C-alpha cells in the first residue's frame, strides 16, 4: 500500500504562526484565548475567542488577492506557502497533474459573506462584489490553492463540521493511493464576525464563561462548553518516493491510519468514536499498546467528554495512555482543528514531547484519564492517535507515527 508522509507543515494558530513559533508556545502551554478584537463583542453574551494575532495578509499575498479573499482563505494561502517552503518543493519539481488539493471547510468565507449580504440588503444589488460568487463558498480554499500553485490534479472539499480537518487528510491519502504524488491538505478556518458569532452562540456549545482561563475546560468537572478560535494547519502530504527525489527533505512523520464513523441517534447504541479509533488503528495495522499519546477531541461539554473518556478507556484501559488537548490554548478551530491536531501530533513525534492541556484543574475522576496537564512530557513519541468529532455525530480518527 502506498505510504503517506508529512514533509511540510503550515500553521496559523492563535498561539503561533508557523510550526516553530506554534510549537514553542504549545510546549510551554501559552494560551491565546482573549477578549474578541475582530468585532465589538459587547452586544453578545460570549465575548472571548482564540484570534490569530499579527497576521498581516498584505505582507504575504499580492494585493490583487485581497479584495477577492476572506480572512480564512488568506490564512490558508499563506499556510500553504509555508508548508510548501518547509517541504522544499519548488515550482516544476513535481508535474502539476500529480498534485492534489483537499481541504476542509465548515462555513466558508463567512465574514466576506456578511459584508456582501449587508451591501445587498442595505445598498442594493449593484454594490455586491463580483467575487462573492466564490469568496464565501465552501470550495474556495481548494480552488485558490490550486490557482496559486498551478496544481492540476484532483481537488476536493469535505465538510463534516469539526471532524472535517481529519477527513480532508484522510481523503488526501486516498489520492496518493490512486497515484497522485503529493497533496496539499488540511483546513484553516475563521468565522469571527457578528453574523457567524450569533450562529456560534446558537449552537448551544459555547462556554457561558468569559474568563479565558475558566471557559474551555474539557474533562474538567467545571466543563461548560468550548471557546471558538480561528486558524488551523495545511500540510504537504506525499509518498516517500516523491520526498526522496528532493534530497534533504525532512519527513516529520507518517499518516498511518484513518477512519470515520457516524453516531446513531438511538440512545441504546454506543457512540461511534470508539469504533472509529479502533478502525483507524486497524487501518494502521497497529495495536493500542503502540500508541504513546492520544490527542483528544476534548469537546468541553460534559456528556461528550464522558463519551470520549469512555471510548479512550475502552481501548487503552483506565489511565492507559497519556491524553492531551493543546486546543485548550487556542479554542476550537472548526475545520482547522482536526488538521492542527494532526500537525501537533506529528510535531510531538518529531520533537519527542507531548504538549500539555492547560487550564483544566479538576479532571472528573470517573473518566480515568491520564491527562497531560500544564507541563509537557518529554520522551519518545512513536505514534499518536488523534480524535475529532463534528456536531451531529461525525467522528474521525487518525493514527500518525514515526516514519521508518
Amino acid at each position: 500500500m502506498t505510504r503517506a508522509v508529512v514533509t511540510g507543515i503550515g500553521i496559523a494558530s492563535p498561539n503561533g504562526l508557523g510550526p516553530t513559533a506554534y510549537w514553542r508556545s504549545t510546549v510551554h502551554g501559552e494560551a491565546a484565548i482573549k477578549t474578541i478584537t475582530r468585532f465589538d463583542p459587547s452586544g453578545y453574551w460570549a465575548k472571548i475567542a482564540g484570534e490569530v494575532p499579527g497576521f498581516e495578509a498584505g505582507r504575504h499575498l499580492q494585493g490583487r488577492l485581497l479584495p477577492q479573499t476572506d480572512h480564512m482563505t488568506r490564512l490558508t494561502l499563506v499556510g500553504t506557502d509555508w508548508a510548501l517552503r518547509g517541504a522544499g518543493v519548488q515550482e516544476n519539481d513535481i508535474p502539476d497533474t500529480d498534485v492534489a488539493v483537499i481541504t476542509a471547510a465548515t462555513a466558508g468565507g463567512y465574514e466576506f459573506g456578511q459584508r456582501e449580504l449587508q451591501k445587498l440588503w442595505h445598498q442594493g444589488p449593484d454594490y455586491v462584489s463580483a467575487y462573492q460568487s466564490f469568496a464565501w463558498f465552501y470550495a474556495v480554499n481548494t480552488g485558490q490553492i490550486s490557482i496559486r500553485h498551478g496544481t492540476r490534479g484532483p481537488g476536493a472539499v469535505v465538510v463534516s463540521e469539526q471532524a472535517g480537518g481529519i477527513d480532508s487528510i484522510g481523503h488526501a491519502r486516498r489520492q496518493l493511493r490512486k497515484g497522485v504524488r503529493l497533496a496539499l491538505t488540511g483546513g484553516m478556518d475563521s468565522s469571527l464576525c457578528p453574523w457567524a458569532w450569533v450562529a456560534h452562540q446558537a449552537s448551544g456549545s459555547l462556554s457561558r464563561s468569559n474568563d479565558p482561563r475558566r471557559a474551555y475546560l474539557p474533562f474538567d468537572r467545571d466543563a461548560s462548553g468550548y471557546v471558538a478560535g480561528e486558524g488551523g494547519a495545511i500540510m504537504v502530504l506525499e509518498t516517500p518516493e516523491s520526498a526522496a527525489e528532493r534530497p534533504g527533505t525532512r519527513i516529520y512523520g507518517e499518516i498511518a491510519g484513518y477512519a470515520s464513523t457516524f453516531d446513531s441517534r438511538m440512545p441504546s447504541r454506543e457512540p461511534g468514536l470508539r469504533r472509529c479509533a479502533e478502525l483507524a488503528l486497524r487501518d494502521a495495522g497497529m495495536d493500542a499498546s503502540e500508541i504513546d499519546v492520544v490527542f483528544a477531541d476534548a469537546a468541553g461539554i460534559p456528556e461528550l467528554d464522558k463519551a470520549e473518556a469512555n471510548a479512550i478507556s475502552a481501548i487503552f484501559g483506565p489511565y492507559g495512555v497519556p491524553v492531551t488537548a493543546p486546543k485548550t490554548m487556542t479554542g476550537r478551530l472548526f475545520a482547522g482543528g482536526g488538521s492542527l491536531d494532526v500537525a501537533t501530533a506529528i510535531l510531538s513525534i518529531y520533537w519527542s514531547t507531548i504538549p500539555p492541556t492547560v487550564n483544566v484543574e479538576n479532571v472528573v475522576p470517573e473518566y480515568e484519564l491520564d491527562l497531560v496537564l500544564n507541563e509537557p512530557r518529554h520522551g519518545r513519541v512513536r505514534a499518536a492517535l488523534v480524535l475529532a468529532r463534528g456536531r451531529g455525530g461525525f467522528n474521525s480518527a487518525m493514527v500518525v507515527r514515526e516514519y521508518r
Partner: protein
Amino acid sequence: MSRRAVITGLGTVAPGGIGTKAYWNLLSEGRSATRIITHFDASPYRSRMAGEVDFDPVREGLSPQEIRRLDRAAQFALVAGREAMHDSGIEFDHLDPSRIGVALGTAVGCTTSLEREFVVGSDRGKYWEIDQNYTVPHLYDYFTPSSMAAEVAWLVGAEGPATVVSTGCTSGLDSVGYAAELIAEGSADVVITGGTEAPLSPITVVCFDVIRASSTRNDDPEHACRPFDRTRDGLVLAEGAAILVLEELEHARARGAHIYGEVAGFASRCNAYHMTGLHPEGKEMSDAINAAMDMARVDPTAIGYINAHGSGTKQNDLHETAAFKRSLGDHAYRTPVSGFKSMIGHSLGAIGSLEIVGSLLAFEEGVIPPTANLHDPDPECDLDYVPLVAREANVNAVLTVGSGFGGFQSAMVLRKVEEVRR
C-alpha cells in the same frame, strides 16, 4: 477482487415534478421547467428566472418539526432520500449500520435560510452587529452544511463514514465519486449519496448577476437556457436534489437487487486557471475524462452517450466541446451529447447527481434525453447535441461531466452492469 460500486436506488426532487418518474417524463419529452422566479420578488435583478421546484413539504410527508427546522435543501434531501431508500428495496433496519455511509453534495448549503435570518438579525442590512436576540435556535445547522449529511444519516440509520462534499457546481458528481471510493476501499457496503441545493434567494441570484453568468432572456424563461446554441446567453439557476443508493456489487447481487448501473470510473481535476473562468482548450476536463475512462477500463469508442455540463454560458459550451474532442477524438463526433440544464436549469451542487440519475435512466429506457432549446447551433459547437427531441439508443456506457467555480472539472463513467465480466 476489487469492490465495485453500483446504483440500486434513485430519488429525485426536480423542477417539473417530485419523484424520479416525473423527472424522467420531463427529460424524455424534452420539456423545460424554468420560469420567472416566484419564491421572492426578483424584479430588481438582472436575471429573474429559475428552475423552481413545486414543493409542498406537508404533502411530501415531512413533519412539522422538520419543516420548521430544516432548510429547503435539507428537506429536498430527505424527500429524495426516502424515495431512493424505497426504490432500492433495502431493508435498512436489517443492515449493519456501521457499513452504511453518507456522502452528500451541496455547493451553497443552507444559504436561503441564512439569508432569511440575516435579514432579520441585521434589520435588512442596517447593522453590522447582528442582534443576538433575533436568531433562531437552529442557526448553527444552517451555518455549516454538514448538518444536512447528518439528517440523511439519521434517515437511513447510517453509522459508517459520513460527510458533505462541497466542490461548487461539481459537488453532485464529486459526492458520488467519493461514495464510490468508500465502497471500493471497503469502508462501507452501502452509501447514500447525491446532491441537494435550494439556492434561490437574492444573494445567489446576485452572485451570478454581477459576473454576468446568468441568462437575461427574462421575456422567454422557458427557453432561456440554450446550451450549444448560437444565441445562448448564460445559465438559469435552479434548485433540486437527487439521492442515490450506492451499493457494493456483490452485496446488491446477493439480495437480487435491481441494478441501474455501475460507477465505473471517476476523476476530478483542478484547472488552476481562474476561480470562475474556463480556458477554451478544456485540457483539465479532458484529463479528468481520460482518468475516469482509464479507471473504468473503457475505450473512448465504448462511450455511447455524453451527458454534458451544458450550462449554456458562452465559455462553458466551447470548453467542454473542446474537452470531448480532446479525449474521444473522432468518436466525439459520433457520440450523442445532451445537456439537461436546458430543461431543469443549473441547480449547482445538486445538478451533477440529477444528471447521473437521468443518465442511468437512459440505460434503463433506451432513450437519450435531448438538449432542449437548441434551434440555432453554434458553429463552434459542432458535435451531435441531440437537439429538441429524445432519441432511442442502446447505450452501455455514459460519460457525465461537470465544471464549476474554483476550477473544478469532474468526469464519471457509468456503465451497465450486464457488461461486467466476472
